[in-house]
């Protein structure tokens, strides 16, 4: 099997083999030319480097002056591997280019054996980004290019990587399935807020059947406990709350569960 022609190519087809219209092509061209603005790209990079290793004030470690110079050079666009690492366990050099958004640094990691190993060299990205390969046709109009660069607001202190916090069940979930599960649970919540506790319980029970290994088990259970309580089934709410708190003692919903099903 070979790939079909892309819609944006000359003679590209869409739908039922119909020719691509100019508007369709322009919409796709807009998507292809969507880029981060250069300042944002630089700020995000700074945030990444700041989280990989903490900064060390230049001058406090042997060899930092040389490292700073090399990093600065890299930041100005050479982007080549730095070689000025001194044999200082865990030493880092971060060079800030006059308060600009670009930074280069050179990380040296120790493996705990007393030896110093150059694990990975990270240099600042060049100031100007190379353009993405232009689509064969339908280059976006110049006057609209600015609008295709989306403004993002990088946060100075981003949370650390949250990795696999949400567990395997969440990772297994396909986007549409997660959305479907969320929709059902939210609908149950709305029903409960509208005062229909029995209706909410029915929806939650259906969700339990449909998304047995879903990613929103805690939320479903917490809502169920509240719905049981509001439906007058206080004993059932208490019983279920005890199970919930045993299973998820650190749950963000623990306070709510205690409120409606606590002893």
């Amino acid at each position, binding site marked *: *099997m070979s*790939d*079909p022609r*892309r819609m944006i190519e000359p003679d590209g087809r*869409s*739908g*039922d083999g*119909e020719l691509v*219209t*100019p*508007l369709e092509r*322009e919409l796709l061209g*807009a*998507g*292809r030319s*969507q*880029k*981060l603005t250069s300042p944002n*790209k630089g700020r*995000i*990079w700074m*945030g*990444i480097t700041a*989280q*990989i290793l903490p900064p060390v004030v230049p001058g406090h470690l042997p060899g930092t002056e040389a490292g700073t110079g090399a990093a600065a050079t890299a930041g100005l666009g050479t982007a080549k*591997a730095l070689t000025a690492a001194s044999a200082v366990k865990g030493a880092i050099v971060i060079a800030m280019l006059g308060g600009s958004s670009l930074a*280069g640094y050179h990380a040296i990691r120790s493996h705990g054996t007393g030896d110093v190993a150059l694990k*990975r*060299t*990270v240099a600042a*990205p060049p100031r100007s*980004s190379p353009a*993405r390969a232009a689509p064969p046709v339908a280059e*976006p109009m110049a006057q609209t290019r600015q*609008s295709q660069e*989306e*403004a*993002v*607001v*990088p*946060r100075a202190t*981003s949370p*650390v*990587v949250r*990795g696999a916090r949400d567990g395997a069940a*969440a*990772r297994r*979930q*396909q*986007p*549409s399935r*997660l*959305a479907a599960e*969320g929709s059902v*649970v*939210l609908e149950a919540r709305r029903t409960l*807020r509208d005062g229909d506790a029995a209706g909410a319980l029915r929806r939650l029970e259906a969700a339990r059947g449909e998304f047995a290994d879903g990613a*929103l088990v805690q*939320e479903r259970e917490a809502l169920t406990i509240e719905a049981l309580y509001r439906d007058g089934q206080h004993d059932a709410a208490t019983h279920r709350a005890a199970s919930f708190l045993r299973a998820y003692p650190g749950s963000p*919903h623990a306070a709510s569960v205690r409120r409606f099903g606590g002893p």
Partner: protein
Amino acid sequence: MTLAEIYEKYADFVWRALRRQGVPPDDSADAIQEVFLIVHRTLDSFEGRSLLSTWLFTICRSVARDRRLRALRMEIARPDLLVDGVDQRANAAARLEHNDRLSLLETILQRMDGDLREVFVLFEIEDMTGEEISQALSIPLGTVYSRLQLARKAFKRAVVRMEMTNPAPVVRAGGRA
């Protein structure tokens, strides 16, 4: 490649992938950082059996999914004092961007079925091959093609519908007004 080189080459790709996986604009910088921190942690284990872009996409997918999950949990746990339903701020922003081609594209993509959207974006916008998409999404190549076919139809229908219901912005978007 160093992390910096990967960032320089793929930051825009990562950003687009995250946005099209439902990461909102004001969360995208944070999400991009998260992706590249994962890259930093796991780069040594990347063996080059797949394309770098394919690998990055799978990371984006995972990060976006975790964020959607967190957003859902926050939504469910949201205090009741807030009004359910329509997000007025999002509506206002949408109105402001109404005439923008990119906004039109995003609207169409967001309304598309998630499975179809993934294939459509990777093929038609990110220039991945069918094989690469098959690898990135862990689906057979035939499924890639069938989803692409359905997605193209959905895209075409959505563009036609948009032209019929809101012709003025579309004409401007086409640059022929």
